[in-house]
């Protein structure tokens, strides 16, 4: 049986050694840094408290470790190489250098990590939304390693452009799209307020009509266009067909009239929904 005093002495000696040893650790803003000595994990508050990044730390007492300098890439790489690598795509920034990401290959992740879910990635120093990255999972946290240079950058650009144009998840379609990309896109849209398309569409129509002095009654999405039932200030009801230009290639926040509901001598498309209200009320076109 192990002599408990001997064991305690060993730990005490290791702890004493720790006080004079510098260690490398990742640190999130406002977080703490950890190192392991004799199988025991020691947690320190970094000094400066707001440091974020990879650093070389020196313990000053049992609670605090001072940042000596930022760690070099070869050191960081050596640290990260101890952990399994995972390919992810960035969904959106949670705060500072912490991002939410989604696995590039669900089956691979399920096989290796027994789970498939969005992952919080820390110290993401590069990359923009939807970009593919390599990260390392240490069993507790996921740490950014690098932007994946093998990935096709046009995929991230396509997803970004679709998000900018507020393309609904169900309409997202391009060459080489994968189910994972669709899930990732859905994840990214969820944090955009009012992205849920029907509500957003309704809001846009309501605002456009309101600016012109009209009021939305109801509308229906017909795919390429909407049919909009609306009422002028004198209470007259109209039905117009409107296409949201911003869904097409031209990223312009505009609501072009396809069919106004009255005769505009084939000039329906010269009007947007807002100006149409004036046209309907005053017939001045």
């Amino acid at each position: 049986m192990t002599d408990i005093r001997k064991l305690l002495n060993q730990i005490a000696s290791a702890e004493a050694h720790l006080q004079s040893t510098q260690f490398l650790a990742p640190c999130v803003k406002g977080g703490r840094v950890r190192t392991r000595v004799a199988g025991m994990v020691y947690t320190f508050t970094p000094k400066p408290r707001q440091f974020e990044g990879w650093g070389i730390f020196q313990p000053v007492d049992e609670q605090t470790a001072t940042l000596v300098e930022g760690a070099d890439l070869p050191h960081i790489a050596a640290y990260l190489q101890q952990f399994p690598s995972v390919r992810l795509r960035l969904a959106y920034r949670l705060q500072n250098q912490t991002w939410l990401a989604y696995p590039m290959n669900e089956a691979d992740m399920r096989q290796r990590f027994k789970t498939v879910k969005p992952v919080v990635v820390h110290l993401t120093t590069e990359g923009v939304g939807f970009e593919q990255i390599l990260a390392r999972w240490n069993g507790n946290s996921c740490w950014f390693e690098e932007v994946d240079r093998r990935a096709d950058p046009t995929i991230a650009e396509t997803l970004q452009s679709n998000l900018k144009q507020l393309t609904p998840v169900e309409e997202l379609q391009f060459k080489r799209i994968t189910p994972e990309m669709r899930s990732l896109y859905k994840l990214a849209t969820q944090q955009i307020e009012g992205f849920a398309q029907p509500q957003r569409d309704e809001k846009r129509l309501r605002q456009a009509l309101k600016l012109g002095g009209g009021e939305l009654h109801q509308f229906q999405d017909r795919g390429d266009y909407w049919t909009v039932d609306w009422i002028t200030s004198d209470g007259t009801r109209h039905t117009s067909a409107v296409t949201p230009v911003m869904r097409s290639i031209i990223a312009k926040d505009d609501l072009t009239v396809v069919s106004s509901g009255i005769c505009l001598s084939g000039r329906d498309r010269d009007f947007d929904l807002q100006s149409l209200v004036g046209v309907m009320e005053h017939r001045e076109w």
Partner: protein
Amino acid sequence: MSIFFHEQLYRTDEIMAKLKEFPVTICGAGALGANLAENLARAGFGKLKVIDRDRIEERNLSTQPYYRSDVGAFKAKILANNLYRAIGTKVEAATKELTATNAAQLLKESRLIVDVFDNSASRQAVRDYADHTGIPCLHAGLSADYAEVIWNDVYRVPSDVNDDVCNYPLARNLVMLTVAVACEVIVSFVATGEQRHFTITLKDLSVQFLNL
């Protein structure tokens, strides 16, 4: 088989072993410096140091091996990171301005200094340090369609008239040609100790050996 396999077949094992252990400091990580560092690292140099205080700007991307996403970062740091990621060579990066005061501290471990700075003040500091210590120093420089690769003993620091860091003509092909010539001069110096001088003109695609 190493990643330097083809170089090894061309240069011999003996020379490759020399290149790996020969400490070279490159002063400047701009058009010449960054491409030269990349060439030397990929040719098998294992002890490289790069000194440059500048940050990457958009206009650098046509002649320097950086990415759009690198704009704003320190050139030396990004260069070191890129080469480590690419081939595993650990390049030491110093993001400081080299002056007469700190030249000794920054250059002390070099057995060869390569001056590819873009301003005459820093070039002068490197030249004076090399003169004073006797450490071999190669200067490579560009001007419109002319370039030169000259060793310290016959090198003259250009006037500061062309030190405008924004507005000057610079052809990528001249940069790459000069980098290739300088790199070959460096390899042959490490292999044989010979110090060869060259001039290069882009318009007539001429590389001229100078017997100075």
